[in-house]
């Protein structure tokens, strides 16, 4: 079934090249994937990300419920702040990576991936059993637009007039605010500063057109992928899934271990896996020119001299670095270099932490 966002007709009018992304019809690019990538790195670009799942959790017990559901502890945030977390199954396998926002002491918002929509909704409903007063509401009435790039604040702060300038200026990273029926959060998937903006579907087209008049470049999924990979961010179903734990996917930072008394789904399995996981996720950078692709096998000698094999889970050409970059699952004992067979020769890959570019944040 092909689903369309409220901005579908706008993308058609723009002449965007459309693709099917987990049953959603979305632009892969509007004019040039590479130029759209550069627009976000150097100026500001915007993405229609209305395919993502927005879920509101309401009720006096919503915080307690989320403390059980999520690896991150929502008691760490106050209204107006956000956390990046995972939802695990009982085996510590990752069901999804999400951003959770605190809107009030009894209202939270989660933004989850489009690919996991049904799984997450069913999982959340099932585990709400012990919290009967909590309401879980799917917000399909909202569209989502991501405005990202070093000039995001510059281009956006005046959209509601002078009286609101200060609100934009003082909004820090990983925070959120509501102005009328617009929800702004300073989060993103590109490594640049910017906003993810939720608004009623009926207002999406006018707002999108208004942002275009401000000189904001429309960008598609193609640029979104090269941007997130340059920033070292995982893509669910590619770099992680329910068969992988946070330890083997560079997601340990989504776990709040303290207080030790906080029970959350997957904690028991996670504690067993901690320090017991032989795999980890690294960034790889091609030393010479070329491109790395998903599924590429890589070889190395680890720090003990033992031969090992890993796999590239996400690979692409980095427009900023002008060479291949990727994320790979490898042995935790890997050294500084790996090799792959590409173009009928052996290519050398540098092993590094997945921060390929200096991100604005």
């Amino acid at each position, binding site marked *: 079934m092909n689903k369309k966002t409220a901005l579908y007709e706008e993308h058609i009018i723009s002449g965007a090249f459309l693709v099917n992304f987990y049953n959603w019809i979305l632009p892969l690019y509007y004019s040039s994937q*590479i130029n759209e990538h550069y627009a976000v790195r150097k100026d500001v670009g915007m993405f229609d990300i209305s395919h993502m799942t927005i879920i509101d959790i309401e009720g006096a017990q919503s915080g307690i419920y989320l403390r059980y559901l999520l690896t991150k502890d929502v008691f760490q945030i106050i209204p107006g702040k956000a956390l990046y977390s995972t939802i695990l199954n009982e085996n510590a396998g990752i069901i999804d990576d999400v951003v959770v926002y605190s809107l009030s002491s009894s209202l939270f918002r989660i933004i989850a991936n489009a690919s996991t929509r049904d799984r997450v909704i069913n999982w959340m409903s099932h585990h709400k059993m012990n919290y009967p007063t909590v309401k879980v509401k799917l917000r399909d009435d909202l569209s989502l637009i991501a405005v990202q790039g070093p000039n995001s604040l510059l281009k956006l702060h005046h959209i509601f007039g002078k009286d609101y300038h200060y609100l934009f200026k003082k909004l820090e990273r990983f925070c959120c605010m509501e102005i009328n029926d617009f929800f702004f959060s300073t989060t993103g998937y590109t490594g640049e500063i910017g906003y993810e903006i939720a608004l009623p579907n009926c207002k999406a087209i006018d707002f999108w057109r208004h942002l275009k008049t401000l000189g904001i470049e429309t960008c598609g999924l193609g640029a979104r992928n090269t941007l997130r990979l340059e920033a070292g961010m995982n893509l669910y179903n590619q770099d992680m899934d329910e068969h992988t734990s946070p330890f083997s996917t560079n997601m340990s930072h989504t776990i709040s271990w303290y207080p030790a008394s906080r029970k959350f789904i997957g904690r028991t399995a996670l504690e067993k896996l901690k320090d017991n996981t032989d795999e980890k996720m690294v960034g790889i950078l091609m030393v010479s020119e070329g*491109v790395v692709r998903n599924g590429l096998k890589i070889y190395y000698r680890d720090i003990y001299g033992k031969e090992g094999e890993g796999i590239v889970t996400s690979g*692409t050409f980095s427009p900023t670095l002008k060479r*291949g970059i990727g994320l790979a699952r490898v042995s935790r004992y890997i050294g500084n270099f790996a090799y792959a067979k590409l173009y009928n020769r052996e290519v050398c890959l540098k092993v590094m932490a997945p921060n390929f570019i200096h991100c604005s944040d």
Partner: protein
Amino acid sequence: MYDNIPKKLKYSKQHEWLHKKEKSIYTLGITYHAQNTLGEIVFVELPSLGDSFSAGDCFAVAESVKSASDIYIPISGKIISVNNKLKENPDLINSHPYEQGWIAKIYSEDQKSFLNLLDFDQYRILIESI
């Protein structure tokens, strides 16, 4: 659309074009249709000078943002020149697939394979059927 298939060139079924410059010297590249399907080309792996290939061998690779594409040599021959401009500007293949976006020049005495290549009309029929 027919502007994108120069009449004087020969074509392979794998969407390469060949131009006979002089006796035994040919220039080759990929067609407008091929670069359009590939998308923005970000890297080209070129052969080395002096490398020899048989007709149908993969002699170069074009990497676009979304995938890698093997490029096949339509006739047997030896590489005598490669387009070094593609190192800095691989997207020349997208903007000028038949001129500045040429990939390699080869020395070949493979008349048989050359005669089996498609002409303008045959190539046009091929891409219309895709």
